[in-house]
């Protein structure tokens, strides 16, 4: 903002900013930005022959080709040059004014393939399917020398390093950030924040070396009355050994959120005395309630069908005082199919006349609703019912983290801060073994893999829905959520690599890669919601009706050029903050002046010093 003027221009403070407000100045702003950015880019600049391409540390150009045509669904064919690095794909068309460019990390590619045979002119068409709701199409002449590889073959190699026995770019990337994001989550500190251990809950070392359960974290919290030996026996009764352990405890009522996998009841109705004892102990750890709610995320039919495969659910006979609730959330395959339909509806173009019914037919929002509704019921039981809950699905690594982490966001305002949210992801998703590698398929060319599913995307969507309903309750903004999703796929950071804590340690991911949180926490202000109000013990109960759910257009429809994402309220709020800071400064200056004047003119009366109205933290 401009230097502060004199007192007599109170109004001019406001108008001084108007002078540059004509529309034409818009591009100028970006020019300055461009210049300042270009400088910074030069430092990491690697390949002088390919000028313009801003490369990251350790990013190397692998191949490039001229005369590639990008068939843009919005503006038609664009001719330009295509460059493949070990991290991303660049497409540049400099003939056009303004310059047209595509710049996407290879991690975002799910499939690259030749479409059809070469045409009479020797042109071959390539299709690129992206994980971020885009499909790209290129046309390129086959190299005449059949020994020479086409740029697309190079692309396929580097897009799927895992399938080609190469390492992901995250292991090369060596950017140094002031903050080390791998230190964001310290399990003991997080449990300590919750007041643990306490007289009812203890740390168990039983999984210290991941021998009890290889998909669980090393640090587990269990009721004090249960021995490690009993836990071992419970682990044989729970799918994949994922025993019931504590996720979160209510600071006042001591009602706990406990997560697990399904019981291995099977068709014969097996029982496990230790498991029953464990659940009883969980209930007893909370003096406020003589009941325990077990939330099975699945539709009851699916849960019953699992008995055929040896799984199942807790019978109310075996578990006295427990009430079992099914939450009707469908499995990973249904969700994958729903997202596929959604992609058809939003990309590339929206059919205007049937937008709403098309959207409805994808069922995407319906799934979002069921997940939010399930989390809401859990949060309500814990908060209002003061009852402890056990949450599980089949394996306890997909729907279970969706439900527990959403419920925790509702219950604990800490998880609505930027750092708290990082901790939540590190804890509920990463340490408890959501199979990111499998669900996303990092660097793997097997795009039809039935284990892929947008479970995490769905969770982030649910969080976004909550931020819409409570615009002042979250410290982070939409950009933060989109950044997380983009780096879920990018493979630039190590955060979302591997399937479990054990695997990440084995691969030395924290040592060899950079954490996404290093990047995020080094420029937090980008991700701050200016409207955030911290009110500590405030539980959020979102309204989960379809009327209040909306499609996240700035994520799913962001490739549409008619989409102009904007957060006008946030922008305006920042302007207002700046204005307040400016006024405050001036008032303080004047107060000082007045005080000085009074002091120098020998205070005959100890005039009431004007109470300084210096409200509130500034978010800038």
């Amino acid at each position, binding site marked *: 903002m401009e230097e502060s003027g004199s007192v007599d221009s109170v109004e001019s403070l406001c108008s001084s900013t108007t002078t540059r407000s004509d529309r034409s100045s818009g591009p100028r702003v970006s020019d300055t930005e461009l210049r300042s950015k270009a400088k910074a880019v030069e430092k990491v600049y690697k390949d002088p022959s390919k000028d313009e391409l801003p490369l990251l540390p350790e990013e190397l150009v692998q191949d490039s080709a001229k005369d590639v045509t990008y068939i843009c669904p*919005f503006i038609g064919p664009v001719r330009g040059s295509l460059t493949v690095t070990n991290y991303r794909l660049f497409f540049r068309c400099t003939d056009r004014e303004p310059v047209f460019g595509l710049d996407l990390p290879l991690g975002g590619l799910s499939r690259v393939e030749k479409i059809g045979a070469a045409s009479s002119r020797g042109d071959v068409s390539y299709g690129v399917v992206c994980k971020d709701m885009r499909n790209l199409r290129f046309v390129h002449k086959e190299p005449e020398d059949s020994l020479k590889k086409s740029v697309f073959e190079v692309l396929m190699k580097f897009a799927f390093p895992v399938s080609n026995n190469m390492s992901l770019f995250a292991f090369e990337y060596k*950017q140094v950030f002031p903050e080390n994001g791998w230190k964001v989550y310290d399990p003991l500190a997080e449990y300590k924040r919750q007041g643990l251990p306490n007289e009812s809950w203890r740390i168990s070392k039983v999984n210290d070396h991941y021998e009890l359960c290889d998909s669980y974290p090393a640090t587990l919290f269990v009721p004090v009355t249960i021995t490690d030996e009993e836990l071992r026996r419970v682990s044989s009764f729970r799918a994949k050994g994922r025993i019931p352990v504590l996720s979160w405890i209510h600071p006042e009522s001591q009602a706990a959120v406990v997560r697990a996998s399904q019981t291995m009841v099977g068709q014969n109705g097996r029982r496990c005395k230790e498991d029953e004892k464990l659940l009883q102990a969980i209930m007893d750890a909370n003096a406020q309630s003589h009941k325990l709610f077990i939330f099975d995320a699945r539709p009851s039919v699916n849960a019953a069908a699992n008995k055929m495969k040896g799984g199942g659910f807790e019978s109310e006979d075996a578990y006295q005082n427990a009430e079992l609730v099914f*939450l009707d959330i469908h499995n990973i395959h249904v969700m994958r199919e729903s997202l596929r339909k959604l992609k058809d509806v939003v990309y590339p173009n929206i059919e*205007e006349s049937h937008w709403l019914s098309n959207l409805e037919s994808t069922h995407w929002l319906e799934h979002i609703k069921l997940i939010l509704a399930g989390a809401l019921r859990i949060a309500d039981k814990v908060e209002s019912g003061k009852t402890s809950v056990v949450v599980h699905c089949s394996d306890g690594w997909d729907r279970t983290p969706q439900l527990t982490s959403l419920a925790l966001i509702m219950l604990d305002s800490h998880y609505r801060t930027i750092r708290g949210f990082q901790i939540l992801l590190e804890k509920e998703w990463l340490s408890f073994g959501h199979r990111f590698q499998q669900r996303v398929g990092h660097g793997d060319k097997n795009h039809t893999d039935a284990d892929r599913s947008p479970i995490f995307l769905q969770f982030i969507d649910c969080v976004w829905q909550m931020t819409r309903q409570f*615009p002042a309750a979250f410290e982070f903004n939409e950009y933060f959520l989109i950044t997380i999703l983009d780096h879920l796929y990018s493979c630039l950071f190590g955060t979302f690599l591997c399937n479990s804590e054990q695997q990440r340690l084995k691969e030395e991911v924290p040592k060899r890669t950079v954490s996404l949180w290093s990047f995020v926490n080094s420029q937090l202000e980008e991700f701050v919601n200016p409207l955030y109000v911290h009110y500590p013990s*405030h539980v959020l109960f979102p*309204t989960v009706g379809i009327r209040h759910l909306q499609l996240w257009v700035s994520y799913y429809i962001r490739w549409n050029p008619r989409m102009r994402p904007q957060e006008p309220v946030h922008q305006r709020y920042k302007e207002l903050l700046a204005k307040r800071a400016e006024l405050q400064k001036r008032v303080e200056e004047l107060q000082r002046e007045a005080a000085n004047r009074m002091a120098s003119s020998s205070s005959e009366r100890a005039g009431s010093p004007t109470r300084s109205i210096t409200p509130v933290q500034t978010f800038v």
Partner: protein
Amino acid sequence: MFSGKQTKPTFKSYLPPLQTDLKKSPQLPIKKLEAKLLPGEIVVNEANFVRKCIGAESCQDDLWGKLVCTNFKVSFIAHNSLPRQRFQCTHRLLGEHDIPLACVEQVVTVNDVKGKQKILGSNQKLKFNPTELILYCKDFRIIRFRFDEAGPESAKKVCLAIAHYSHPADPQLLFGFEYVGKRYHGSTGERVNGVDPGGGLQTPLFDCSSDWDREIKRTGASEWRVCTINQGYFISPSLPEFFVVPVSLADQDLKQYACCFYSQRIPLWCWNHSSGSALVRMSNISDPQQQRKVEQRISSAITKSHPLRSDVFKSDLDKNLPNIQDIQAALLKLRQICVIDSFEESEEKWLSSLESSRWMEYVRTFLRHAVEVVYMLESRHVSVILLEKEDRDLSCVISCLVQLMCDPHCRSLHSFQGLIQKEWVMAGHRFLDRCNHLKRNDKEESPVFLLFLDCVWQLWNQYPAAFEFTEVYLTVLGDSMWVPVFSTFLFNCPRQRAEHSRDFASSKSIHLGQDQALCFPPVWDWSQQFSLKDQTLFNNPLYVGKIATCVQNGTVKTFTHRRSKKNYSSTLRGLPSALRNGSLGPNDTLARRNSLMLRLRSDLSQVREQQETPSERFVRDFFSRPVDLQGLLLPQLLPSHLSVWKLYFLRWVPEAQIPQGGPITAFHKLSVLTDEIEMLQNQLRQYQGAAGTPNNLHAEHSKMYFKATSTPHQSPAPPEYLSSSFPFSPVGNLCRPGILGTPLSKLLNGAKIWLSTETLANETI
């Protein structure tokens, strides 16, 4: 309207058990239950021991009291009131449980013992004793009363009275006449209701030539003049006495042409674009023989008034837009899914039902058409004639939207009101018929004005900082149509107002004094309805006004600069283009170019070969530039970018309420900040002027509803009573049969399997 917040789960019944009701009831101090009457208001009928339903299934929250029908409203005077809290907006004309008769859409009486139900009209008979009365309101409320303990005869009588009085046989039976007439009685000649219509209002009413003169000057329409030939309404019955025409048309010509137009409506000037292009509205020419000649004359006169002598473009609204019956049908369907269908059932098919109501589609069609007109004015620099058969419905919407998009002046509160005055009230929108105040002809009923408000809301929602008013203002403005007191919404045209008020005055032998007719307050006199404090809910804390800056510049730029210092630009560069394409911030140079390019041609792949139309190009150009909130604003028209106006349509639905959430929580935060800024500015002013001695005039002068706290360094949490329905409350305002009863289950509504394994009994601890 504004009423208490949702009852807490702990809410206790203040009623004695049912069996003892009859015995105990007479001891209730019923004498205190008197309807609060306005001047000119009389009680027509009343029934005691009536219950107003609050929850649908259980009656434990119900209120107990007296149901009164007056010539203005259905009033319920509760014996025990809903728990009140700090927040209390009070309507000055209506009590918490009152419904103006004009707001009643349908009166339904039920006898649940006999299983009978009847919709009551005027002067009808009722063969059974009603146990229940359901009032379906035009503002989407559904209110139920039970007569279990009331005398059967008095229950029947009050129902018949409500039905009868909500169907007035004559406009002069609308309450506004009695109400306004009263102010001329009283020996002192003082105005009873304390309002001097027009006087003291900042809103131009366009009922005098000076308002038009000012508008001509403001828009620089030097080749246009105020025409007075319709004074006394001698030329056209539906035109105002003053309107604006091209200078090249003499009064004599106009008189001659008038007879060719539908209802003698000479084309009306609406507004001039800064380029000199004019926006004109015109009715059809009824005489086919004269059509070409007259059309040519008018067109050439408009061309002459253009500084560049540009052509005239005719935009046929009837061909391109839905008609009034379509709009009415859409609203009825929308109402069905919003409030009448059970929440759970409509939930499943919400999106497709919303689509089949076509309401959103119509909103989009109107906005898109307005954008087309804007393109002609802004880019082609031609004048535009809006052509509609009668020129009294669709053109009101389009001309207003065009002006809102082009002219930042119209986005201030008073100018917006002036705009409605100019394009709706004076231009003769048939408010009396479209509101169907007399319930005579359902075919004429159509929510054209509400559709317009929804279009404005969409613009507001996309550019919230560009408007001085809030969505509460738009909602309350829509509701005011059903308070039949205001000159704004009572008549079909200015002439009708003049005639009716003259007739009424003479029939009641009212001495009008200097006034020529009864003076109804315009709705713009908001003090008629709300206290000054409550009116601050209309002020938008985000409004950039005339002093602030374009979003991309000035202060924001400062932020960007400061930010860039700490930016890991190289990394940002290395970020997936996703990020940068995803948000076209000022530092997204690459993405910015990228998306610019992407807009080069039409975005429909199937029509890729087709050349982009110039107007598409115009829109695309607009979106590739940073927005100037003080300049042209075009709405995003993708269906995915238009939303349902939830505050208006869903505010009464308990299940759709977000407790302690909704946009209002952001509004609260913004208001507090804006209030702090105001406070600081006041302080500066004081230092400047009186050199010290800060006195606290601030509190009274603040424009914000939510004030900064006196304790600094503390961002106040939003008050607990806020909800997405604020400042309205669903409590007792939407009682359709079959919604879940307990507050907890309402709150937790969601999964369709909700009750299957749930033991609700245990939940209401």
